[in-house]
């Protein structure tokens, strides 16, 4: 963790909200991306990310500075998103209903942006087939490169449960991809007229 961030965290633990706002700026993308992958909706992701930081701010005194802050904050985000998903069933909405997603360095080519949007929809559609906890484990493993131990600590699972969930999730994703490749994804490619993946 950079020294500056450590200093901000110390100040935040003493009740300095300005210092915590600096921490928010550093981790906003990571938390927002996690919430977006979990919930699949930009507005809900924004709300969940905001709420995650509020909860973190309230519980900042209990944060152990010897541990990684990003692991801690993503653990809060994971629990919040899982709670939200359990409260209501998230329905897969069509791409037309979704506002454009802010993408880092989208590239100068409009076709590449369109292709990215299609990929986003495919990912969202794929992640939706997983259970809430499996989805969180996959996101932590592939987007944040968390170790099995970090995932286990963040989600409150045993190490063997994490391995088993990740394996099951990979199998589910691969099978769903095979099943949908010729139907849903194929139709999307035809609709947008982009080349096959």
């Amino acid at each position: 963790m950079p020294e500056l961030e450590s200093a901000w965290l110390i100040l935040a633990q003493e009740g300095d909200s300005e210092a915590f706002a600096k921490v928010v700026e550093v981790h906003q993308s990571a938390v927002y991306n996690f919430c977006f992958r979990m919930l699949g909706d930009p507005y809900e992701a924004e709300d969940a990310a905001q709420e995650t930081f509020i909860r973190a701010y309230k519980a900042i005194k209990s944060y152990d500075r010897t541990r990684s802050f990003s692991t801690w904050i993503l653990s809060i985000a994971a629990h919040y998103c899982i709670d939200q998903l359990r409260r209501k069933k998230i329905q897969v909405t069509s791409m037309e209903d979704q506002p454009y997603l802010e993408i880092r360095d989208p590239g100068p080519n409009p076709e590449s942006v369109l292709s990215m949007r299609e990929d986003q929809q495919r990912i969202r559609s794929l992640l939706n087939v997983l259970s809430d906890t499996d989805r969180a484990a996959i996101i932590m493993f592939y987007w944040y490169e968390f170790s099995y131990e970090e995932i286990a600590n963040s989600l409150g699972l045993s190490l063997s449960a994490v391995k088993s969930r990740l394996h099951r999730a990979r199998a589910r994703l691969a099978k769903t991809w095979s099943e949908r490749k010729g139907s849903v994804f194929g139709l999307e490619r035809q609709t947008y007229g982009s080349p096959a993946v």
Partner: protein
Amino acid sequence: MGHQLYESWLLSVEPLMPEDEKMLHEHVETCQSCRDLFFAWQEVENLIREAPIAEPTPGFADRWQIRLENLAIEQKLRRQNLISWWFVSATIGAALLVLLVMVIVFFATVQTPFQVFVSGITFFAGLLALMSTLQVAFIPVLEVILTSIPPVIWFIVFVALGLSIILTTYSIRKYIFPRRVAL
């Protein structure tokens, strides 16, 4: 050996032993379903690994600070409401307790409804007699006071009294009902 082991190897992120890898390679060449699974997972993994980081719209940290401030205001209002309700409840509770004590004391002194009636009449008669005595005693004094003090002083006294009543009412109202803050 069944598909389950090969599937497990295909989806594993741990490196395989050379002999296991060879067995898997031979199996995938002959088994269509395992080959499909292998390619499907490769495509999914590539898709996930190439996925960009979704960014929030600009001003996220500012929006967070505003949300935190609003939350603090909401909590303050909730606390004030709680204190107000506690104050009102305590006052009502104390009044009820006094009433209960009075009722108990009153009924402890009488035994029949007739005695209650007689006690009530006696109480009101006593009250009227007291008022009459006070009237007789104080009217001459009041007459002296009213005639000796100039009307300007009376005017000032009544205005001051009226203002103090308004101020007291406003203070009580402000204490019991917290000010509404637009969120």
